[in-house]
């Protein structure tokens, strides 16, 4: 499994740390919340203090509790949508790439259509027709978001599958007489793992954005707490113009941090797939420690080895 280990660059470690923190928050957030986020028992519009770390809303709700409780819905929707979309893009992308011919034409056309339709406006139309009780259901929203978010992954996976389909190991599996489904999902899919992981991170990132957008314009139930509804209420009560930064800045920063974490881990996967990007992940000090030339030079891809015995000075690519 050594080959599957992510490059240990500071970017990846930072990204994994951020993601880990928010995943823990998803699980324990609602238990940590000091108050009921919907309770209007407090004085309205308090500024941050020891009792209310992030102050209170214009209805007298504790903002810090809303932030902690809202983490769960936001992350659950993003994960559900990301997983379903990745499954969809895996099935469609690998089938298209492996089967070729008419199925490929049809599936490629389908994903191109979904790529061309702007996702969020389509989501808004679909969501505005949902009955109100489905709008507060994280799984329904997650499924709908996944419908608009699978096409990009399918395109990438199709291209990768096509490059694998005539390799010897696939040929061998075909000769043994393995079924098509087994070849696609047990032989080819594991080899696409880095691409799949990258596609998962990308769709989770898209899903958070889409969900928060829907919530922000009031298309999810405004009674369940997530970071988007917090922004919705802050905007509805003119918090940005009245300088109540503690109301709308924390949820926005949380969304951005989760996104940054996902993108940073994705850098690691990119570097894993494309080794030429790898040396870029090192700081000047690490390069010195590894005994590399001062900087990666043109046409030269430094090869990183942990053992300093052979002074790795850079090997000409190819």
């Amino acid at each position, binding site marked *: 499994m050594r080959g599957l280990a992510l490059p240990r660059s500071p970017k990846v470690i930072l990204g994994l740390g951020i993601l880990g923190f928010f995943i823990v928050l998803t699980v324990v957030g609602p238990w940590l919340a000091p108050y009921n986020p919907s309770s209007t028992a407090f004085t309205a519009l308090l500024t941050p203090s020891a009792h209310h770390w992030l102050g209170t809303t214009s209805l007298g709700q504790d903002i810090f509790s809303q932030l902690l409780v809202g983490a769960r819905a936001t992350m659950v929707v993003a994960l559900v949508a990301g997983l379903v979309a990745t499954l969809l893009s895996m099935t469609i992308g690998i089938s298209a790439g492996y089967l070729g011919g008419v199925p490929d034409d049809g599936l490629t*056309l389908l994903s191109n259509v979904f790529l061309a*339709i*702007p996702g969020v406006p389509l989501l808004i139309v679909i969501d505005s027709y949902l009955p109100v009780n489905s709008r507060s259901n994280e799984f329904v929203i997650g499924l709908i978001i996944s419908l608009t978010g699978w096409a990009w992954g399918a395109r990438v996976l199709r291209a990768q599958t096509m490059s694998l389909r005539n390799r010897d190991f696939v040929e061998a599996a075909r000769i043994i007489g393995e079924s098509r489904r087994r070849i696609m999902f047990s032989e080819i899919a594991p080899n696409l793992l880095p691409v799949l992981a990258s596609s998962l991170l990308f769709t989770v990132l898209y899903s958070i*954005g889409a969900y928060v957008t829907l919530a922000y*314009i009031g298309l999810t139930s405004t009674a369940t707490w997530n970071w988007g509804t917090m922004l919705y209420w802050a905007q509805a009560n003119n918090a940005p113009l009245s300088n109540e930064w503690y109301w709308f800045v924390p949820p*926005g920063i949380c969304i951005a*941090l989760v996104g940054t974490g996902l993108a*940073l881990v994705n850098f690691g996967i990119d570097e894993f797939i494309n080794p030429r990007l790898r040396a870029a992940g090192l700081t000047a000090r690490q390069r010195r420690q590894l005994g590399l030339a001062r900087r990666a030079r043109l046409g030269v891809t430094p090869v990183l080895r942990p053992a300093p015995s052979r002074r790795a000075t850079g090997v000409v690519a190819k």
Partner: protein
Amino acid sequence: MRIVARRLGLYLLTAWVAVTANFILPRLMPGNPVQTLIGKITSQVTPAEIRAIRLSFGMGFKQGVIAQYFTYLGQLFHGNLGISITLGAPVSSILRESVPWTIGLIGISTIISFTLGTLAGAMLGWTRGSRFDSLIPTATFFQAVPYFFLGTVMLLVFGSNLHWFPVLGAYSQSATPGWNWTFIASVLRYGELPVISIVLSSVAGWMLGMRNMMITMIGEDFVLMAVAKGLPRRKVIAHAARNAVLPSIANLSLAIGLVVSGALLVELVFNYPGVGDLLLQAVLNEDYPLIQGIFLVITLTVLAANLIADVVYLVLDPRTRSEAAV
């Protein structure tokens, strides 16, 4: 030209899917949406309005569904998008006023952001491993911030606190709309902050994509060759960058959709009189004909932008042209 024709076919198909979704969705809605909607409208509802609402949900037709579908397509061809439930005016005339604002705002920001991002990405890719690499996590953060949130923060900091920029609206109240200098100057002035917000949120995406392509390009033999024959550094960078930018342009179609989705909400933050602001009003009032009309116009505009990007790509990359000739 075969490639352009194929892409055009794809976009026509996509437009048809969007149009058909608009037809099917209201008819899938459970319960009696018309009654719910009429119950929500507090003012007097005229019989004509009730008819408009019923029609928008596919009720009160004497024809079958297939015939309704063709009537609907025919009306679309004549630019008839139905009547807005809350505003009472034809959707097409409402859109005619707000679409130019959106196209201007998003178009200009996208061009600025693409140019800036590509240039910066080319430099970052060329100087990889230098101290400029520390820009990457910052850029990633900006890429992950929702557009509307960044817009809100900009509004708070530079608009209402520092008073560097005018806030809310697209032009000053004192200017009379029209082709006069005061009005144009005022539009430009009011557009600054929304444009800066959209550029800040979208520039990182172009930059990071370009950087990765540039690093991959630098490893190619033709770049090594250019260095070996002693071309000045500026020319070598230009050589590599011209090839590295192609995937960015090829990916424009995906990116335009994402940028438009994000930028619509920026309008909302700044009360910009474009389609985004209209969309929010339509969503809040459950004005379905208006929501559908907006969705259709956005989709068609994005498709048109995609087609332009495809043609540009064809002009820039001779390989696609020769493939088409085969």
